[in-house]
């Protein structure tokens, strides 16, 4: 046991210093804990299940309009608005109506074929009018409604938000605090002491991991309570995946901050690193939307690995062996970034 005059080992003291610095900065708490929940809330509401949304049909007010209106309004879920002939384009453009019926024999349907809901409304309206005109259905199919928990957008989105949050807090949190310490010459003061350089970088990483449980837990709990997002795999594996992800992005944060001398410089670098992953790594929409030649690159990105692993465990209930590849990739990113950061780190 070394004589430390009442102090803990350096790695512990450095980590404590990092944690104190963090909790004494209220803005940082907001970005780490509150922001992702607000984001999940807003997106969850915006993309909630739309099965019961009414179909809004515009009918041009001319002879035949009362009959068409009466036929359509008999059907639940269809709303009719009477329009003037000169209002067709504007009403469609503003999405006030999904389709416009111009009564006549035969009637004319005005629609925007690039919008799925416009095409759907046209089919519904056509069915109703054809039946009213005497068409007979060959059979009446029976419907068996099931709400597929786990396949809704919010179910798919939440693991992505979790991954994105782990990325942003890792990169911004470490990047800013390190560059701040560098501009204040605190790093120079530290290496003038007998501190081991490795201890400082490790402490920055550990400081990140301490709050990870709260950060991840808050978002998972919120998703479960507010939207019923399922957690089909083991919670330990979800947390473990988050931990490995946090190590990967913590390492990257150290690397990005290893040379920058100013907050402006590090902000630019952080955006440069994060922007491709926001777009490519399947946070808001699936990474499989991108062409095949880009896939090897996309699959190698740490956020893609983290999101894929989280979705596999949370939504499909996959076990450790199924996500081992992703976890290995993340650990590789973390270790390699840390090793390079330690070598090239600018202390003054």
């Amino acid at each position, binding site marked *: 046991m070394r*004589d430390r005059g009442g102090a803990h080992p350096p790695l512990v*003291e450095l980590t404590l210093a990092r944690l104190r610095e963090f909790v004494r900065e209220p803005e940082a708490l907001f970005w780490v804990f509150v922001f992702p929940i607000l984001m999940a809330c807003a997106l969850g509401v915006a993309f909630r299940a739309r099965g019961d949304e009414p179909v809004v049909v515009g009918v041009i007010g001319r002879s035949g309009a009362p009959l068409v209106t009466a036929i359509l309004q008999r059907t639940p879920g269809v709303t009719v608005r009477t329009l003037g002939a000169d209002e067709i384009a504007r009403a469609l453009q503003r999405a006030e109506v999904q389709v416009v019926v111009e009564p006549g024999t035969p009637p004319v349907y005005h629609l925007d074929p690039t919008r799925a809901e416009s095409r759907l409304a046209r089919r519904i309206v056509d069915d109703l009018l054809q039946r009213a005109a005497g068409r007979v259905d060959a059979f009446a199919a029976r419907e068996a409604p099931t709400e597929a928990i786990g396949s809704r957008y919010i179910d798919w989105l939440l693991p992505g938000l979790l991954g994105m949050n782990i990325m942003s807090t890792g990169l911004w949190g470490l990047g800013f605090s390190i560059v701040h310490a560098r501009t204040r010459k605190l790093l120079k003061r530290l290496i003038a002491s007998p501190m081991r350089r490795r201890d400082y970088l490790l402490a920055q990483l550990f400081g990140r991991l301490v709050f990870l449980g709260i950060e991840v837990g808050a978002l998972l709990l919120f998703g479960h309570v507010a939207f019923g997002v399922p957690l089909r795999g083991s919670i330990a594996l979800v947390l473990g995946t988050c931990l490995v992800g946090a190590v990967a992005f913590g390492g990257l944060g150290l690397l990005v901050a290893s040379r920058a001398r100013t907050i402006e410089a590090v902000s630019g670098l952080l955006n440069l690193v994060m922007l491709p992953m926001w777009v490519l790594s399947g946070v808001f929409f699936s990474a499989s939307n991108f062409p095949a030649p880009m896939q090897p690159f996309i699959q190698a990105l740490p956020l893609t690995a983290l999101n894929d692993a989280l979705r596999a465990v949370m939504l499909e209930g996959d076990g450790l062996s199924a996500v081992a590849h992703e976890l290995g990739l993340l650990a590789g990113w973390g270790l390699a970034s840390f090793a390079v950061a330690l070598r090239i780190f600018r202390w003054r």
Partner: protein
Amino acid sequence: MTDRPAVRCRGLVKRYADVVAVAGLDLEVRRGECFGLLGPNGAGKTTTIEILEGLTPADAGEVEVLGERWGRGRDRALRGRLGIQLQETQLNDKLSVEETVRLFRSFADRGRTIDEVLALVELDAKRRSWVGKLSGGQKQRLALACALVGQPDLLFLDEPTTGLDPQSRRQLWDLLASYRAGGGTILMTTHYMDEAETLCDRVAIVDRGKVIALDTPRALISSLGAEHVVEFAVADGATLDQAALAALPGVGEARLEDGAWSLATPEVHLAVPALLAHLSAQGAALSHLTTHSATLEDVFVALTGRHLRDA
């Protein structure tokens, strides 16, 4: 071992782009002494001390600190024997005084307890205050506490009292005196001549990256050949003869700078009456007259023709 100097450097050179910050500097600091690097801003003092601290690599020259050289695999052990205070370090504002000292104490393998250090720098009452809430003097004392936690054999101080009020400066000087009393060695930079005169056993006057004089403050001042300096100016820019002034009784040397004369004088009681008589004989009227005891500032002026504060 103990009779080897605490710091020795030879032929130190450091260039930044096209500026030569240190131009072949030699130094030797003895164990147990307080050694001052005195010079104007930009003279190369900070670069020199940071090379000696192992923070800045030199372009040329040799450095030996406590018998060791930097970069030979024993840097951490050497750092454990040094206390370093940098110019303009801002410690973490969001940590308390005690947490800051505790952090620095954890790096050292030996030294005082945290309570002892806080008592030493008289910050016990502030131990729970955040660093950001401290006054300038308290911050400097905290910086000194961080340098002293490991009970260093050698203390490096870069401009330790710049920007402090007189009371805080005196408090810091007392702290340094008690460190010396415990057998510690100090190498400090300053551009305050009174600080160098009060604290330092020996002073190296540094200008443009070189040592231009090195001795005890007393010896440097007496090298002027004068205990006092008389400064005066005459009205209407009347011209006076330098040789005639230098030949006045009690005057050693006469110098004209920016319309102001200064006379180095071993005997001010002879020089002033003689000067007044000379001026009235010349028909020149005094617009300004002061006398002061000669200081290291006057030594710097005599050596370089410039003042410390505006060099």
